[in-house]
């Protein structure tokens, strides 16, 4: 970045109001949640110190490990699909399509969908009798069925790919626009194959936008709640119950603030290293 930055601690004064707000809406509730995790509560207003026993219970709980494994599997699966499809479509958009900029608002439309609408829409769309996608699938002999684990996952993964791949496409297209044209000419003169041009010319130049995309997508896919809740309610059994739903259920249906707090704390401890790694990668480019 071409900007010269002076070393002045008065910078803190400018950052202070934002920090104050983030302390109130971020640190305070997180600390409250951590506070719950070391206490046991009765009827919501009597609290007793229980130390780390909620954490011990959590680490021995199959429900927690299951939800954690499903969440990580879901994030890995959807992010891989979104990045592969996203880069592929962005590449076609940049190299082949004429007037590509007209497609960007169209691809961004699903991003605007309130999450509850996404869930409602895809539950309907996958209905084998009257749904847009479901009827098409049943024509080729497939019957989407929310009682099957495979189908429940398929539907949620397609839903998420539909909802967010547009973000990756627009990001990558922005990345492509930033590559100087002579790079491609040089690659062409050198007789580089399509794959090698992609691997050694395009991919390094896309790195920045890909990291931005990974950061946003990772944050949102790990905390997914509304969409699966609207489609499968976490089922069949617990097959699509992810960490957020596990936390909300423990807190509001079992009224177990301690265990919900412990799950929350563990969640945050897991997310921070991911965020730090991506942040460092981004900083190194600056």
């Amino acid at each position, binding site marked *: 970045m071409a900007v010269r930055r002076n070393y002045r601690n008065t910078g803190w004064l400018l950052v202070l109001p934002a920090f104050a707000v983030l302390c109130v809406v971020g640190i305070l509730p997180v600390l409250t949640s951590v506070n719950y995790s070391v206490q046991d509560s009765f009827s919501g207003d009597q609290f007793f110190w229980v130390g780390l026993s909620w954490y011990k219970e959590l680490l021995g709980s199959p429900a927690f490990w299951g939800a954690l494994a499903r969440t990580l599997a879901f994030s890995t699966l959807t992010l891989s699909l979104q990045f592969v499809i996203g880069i592929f479509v962005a590449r076609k958009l940049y190299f082949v399509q004429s007037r590509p900029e007209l497609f960007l608002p169209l691809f961004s439309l699903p991003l605007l969908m309130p999450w509850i609408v996404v869930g409602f829409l895809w539950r309907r769309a996958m209905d084998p009798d009257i749904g847009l996608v479901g009827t098409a699938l049943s024509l080729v002999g497939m019957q989407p069925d929310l009682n099957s684990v495979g189908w429940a996952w398929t539907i949620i993964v397609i839903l998420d790919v539909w909802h967010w791949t547009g973000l990756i496409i627009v990001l990558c297209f922005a990345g492509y626009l930033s590559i100087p044209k002579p790079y491609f000419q040089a690659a062409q003169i050198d007789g580089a194959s399509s794959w090698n041009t992609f691997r050694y010319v395009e991919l390094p130049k896309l790195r920045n936008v890909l990291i931005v995309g990974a950061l946003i997508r990772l944050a949102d896919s790990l905390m997914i709640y509304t969409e699966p809740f609207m489609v499968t309610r976490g089922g069949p059994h617990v097959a699509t119950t992810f960490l957020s739903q596990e936390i909300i259920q423990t807190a509001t249906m079992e009224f177990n603030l301690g265990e919900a707090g412990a799950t*929350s704390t563990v969640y945050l401890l897991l997310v921070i290293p991911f965020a730090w790694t991506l942040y460092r990668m981004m900083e190194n480019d600056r």
Partner: protein
Amino acid sequence: MRSPNRRSSNRWSKTVLAFAAFSLLPIYWLVVLSFQPNRASETTLNLIPSPPTVQHYSFIFFNQDWVDGYWNAAVYVFLNVFLTLVVSLPAAYGFSRFRFAGDRQAFFFVLVFRMIPPAVVMIPFFEMFSDLGLIDTHMAVAIAHCMFTVPIAIWILEGFIGAIPTEMEEIADVDGYSRFGFFLKILFPQIRVGIAVTAFFCFVFSWAELILANSLTTVQAKPIGVIMKIVASPVGQVHIGIASAASVLMLIPGTIFLWLLRKHLVRGLSMGRVA
């Protein structure tokens, strides 16, 4: 693969068209569902509303709860965008222009808030706003949503401000502008696209979020999304027509916003990081 500078004037990519269809068809179908009676939606798959009707829209427009719900969502989103911009503009400027003790750690710290799930802070927020007597007010939701809108805003604005040369401040200094005068008269006009894009993203996320909006409101400030849940959630009595009509109505403000910002979308979505 052809090189882009030899692109002929009228070429269509099958991949791009197929993906556009995949993106748009479900939304189009949602519009169809909102314009036809339930007995049609529950028995057949139509790609054109038959018979067409506006009954679901008129139900929403003539029902005070739904109209209020729409208004409530608009009010807290507006409050949120305003609050977010007020605290984020100076912060983004500070991060972009100064190095100070712990600045890198502080910038990371801001990003981390974007990763906190609403599920984690739902109960603490409820307790906090109950103590303050703010439950069921627009302000409660607007403040709570700052948790994820402030980080996004600082991030995007920092990118936009960083693209402006530092000479600008030096010239403003020579011309005798105060710091505040510089912000108002010189910096803001330069980054107005950045501000609009930031407002758009705060709007999108605040408009879509319902976990906190649901738990912090009961009657007076309840947003349309929470009301819609009653007729859209698989546990409730699903009413396809009304739920679809409400969904379409919830899409309209964002679509208008998107259309106005279409030229700046690329820069905005890359958080101001790519030209």
